[in-house]
């Protein structure tokens, strides 16, 4: 088939699909085409859309490509297609963030970081297909492991897990605050109560937190 025909076929596939289509899938369907050519064609299609003022374009997302409408029109499209109020809650987002960066991870390890039970949250995330179970850890109790899904990538507009924003790492050295604690017990003159004050002789770190 010639390039024009391939282009129209790829466009048709993208038009009907309600999920991102991977290059592999396109290759399966079209057979004699290579990934770079697919990317080229998609680039061409996008240029055509811009030139003719289309209200959508082809985006790379979740390991594939998908036609998505221009955000400018979201107000109107949202009327047709409810997408407004299903934002995730704080605890859900935090739990999801932990799974995303540390996957695969067990429930216990998630709870160790969050400091609180996550059963309810995990259930919600599984129901929404943003996280799922994937095997068990080879350790006592054989606990279940959790990972994020493809739907997760779509929900946050990520091409792949590589696109997760970098974690703001604190410096390990910031924690080596070795203090020759100069402890003095101070009695508060007003209340007569004993107050402790730890006066660091050598304080390291601090300030990186910036809150």
């Amino acid at each position: 088939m010639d390039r024009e025909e391939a282009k129209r076929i790829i466009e048709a596939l993208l038009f009907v699909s309600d999920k991102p289509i991977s290059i592999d899938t396109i290759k399966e369907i079209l057979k004699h085409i290579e990934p770079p050519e697919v990317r080229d064609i998609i680039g061409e299609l996008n240029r055509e859309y811009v030139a003719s003022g289309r209200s959508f374009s082809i985006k790379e997302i979740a390991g594939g490509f998908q036609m998505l409408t221009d955000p400018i029109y979201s107000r109107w499209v949202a009327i047709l297609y409810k997408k407004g109020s299903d934002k995730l809650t704080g605890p859900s987002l935090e739990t999801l963030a932990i799974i995303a960066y540390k996957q695969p991870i067990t429930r216990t390890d998630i709870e160790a970081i969050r400091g609180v039970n996550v059963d309810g949250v995990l259930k919600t995330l599984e129901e929404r297909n943003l996280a799922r179970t994937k095997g068990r850890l080879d350790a006592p109790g054989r606990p279940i492991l959790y990972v994020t899904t493809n739907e997760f990538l779509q929900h946050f507009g990520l091409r792949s897990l590589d696109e997760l924003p970098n974690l703001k790492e604190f410096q390990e050295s910031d924690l080596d605050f070795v203090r020759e604690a100069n402890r003095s017990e101070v009695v508060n003159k007003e209340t007569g109560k004993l107050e402790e004050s730890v006066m660091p002789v050598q304080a390291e770190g601090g300030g990186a937190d910036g809150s």
Partner: protein
Amino acid sequence: MTYKVKLEVFEGPLDLLLYLIKKEEVDIYDIPIAKITDQYLEYLELMQLLDLSIAGEFLVMAATLMHIKSKLLLPPDETSVEGEEENDPRAELVKRLLEYKKFKEAAAELAQKESQQKHFFPRVGSGINIDELPAPEAEAFEATLFDLITAFTKVLRDIPKDIFHRIVKDEFTVSEKIHDILHMLVDNKALMFTDLFKAAKNKTEIITIFLAVLELIKIREVNIVQHAPFGEIEIVRSRESIKPNSST
């Protein structure tokens, strides 16, 4: 009268500590344990007063904080070799807080990405819903439960002593207060949190009003907003609850 308000997925002790650290503007690398512990315990007491179900983890953290505090009160171990470093008993806790904070910040970034992605629509699957308009971007940001409790603590502190100690037979129920508040919201777009308590005659009434607010939040009739961090709290009608010809 026992009125148990159960708020699910209550943010945990690390959340509360980070909140206190931020509010008191202390250095996370040099936490004044005595002060923070006292505030933490004050919050737990208030949560118990309101019959909020407290996850066990909160109590474990309370014990941890007191343990650290007591360690800091002890004189340095004199049997340790000269020049040997003593571990700061806060180190473990700070490490946990920083780890949690890392992911909290990551979650905030993900939330931003989620917001942006919401405006891109794909081909719909087989379940199109024709529904209400999406909520407009809030100019104020949603206050957290802790902000609400902070504000309530202030209210309790500011009421005149005689009202505070008056013990009176219950004359009002939470349901009544819920209706009162909703009634006020018909005429006013937003209510200042502190205004709700101005006419209260005793401590029981104050607590009943607060429980009414919590219940309204829980059933999503109202939202609480602040225009600045730790600023005045406002109660507003939540979008989902605004229906034409609403009788309340």
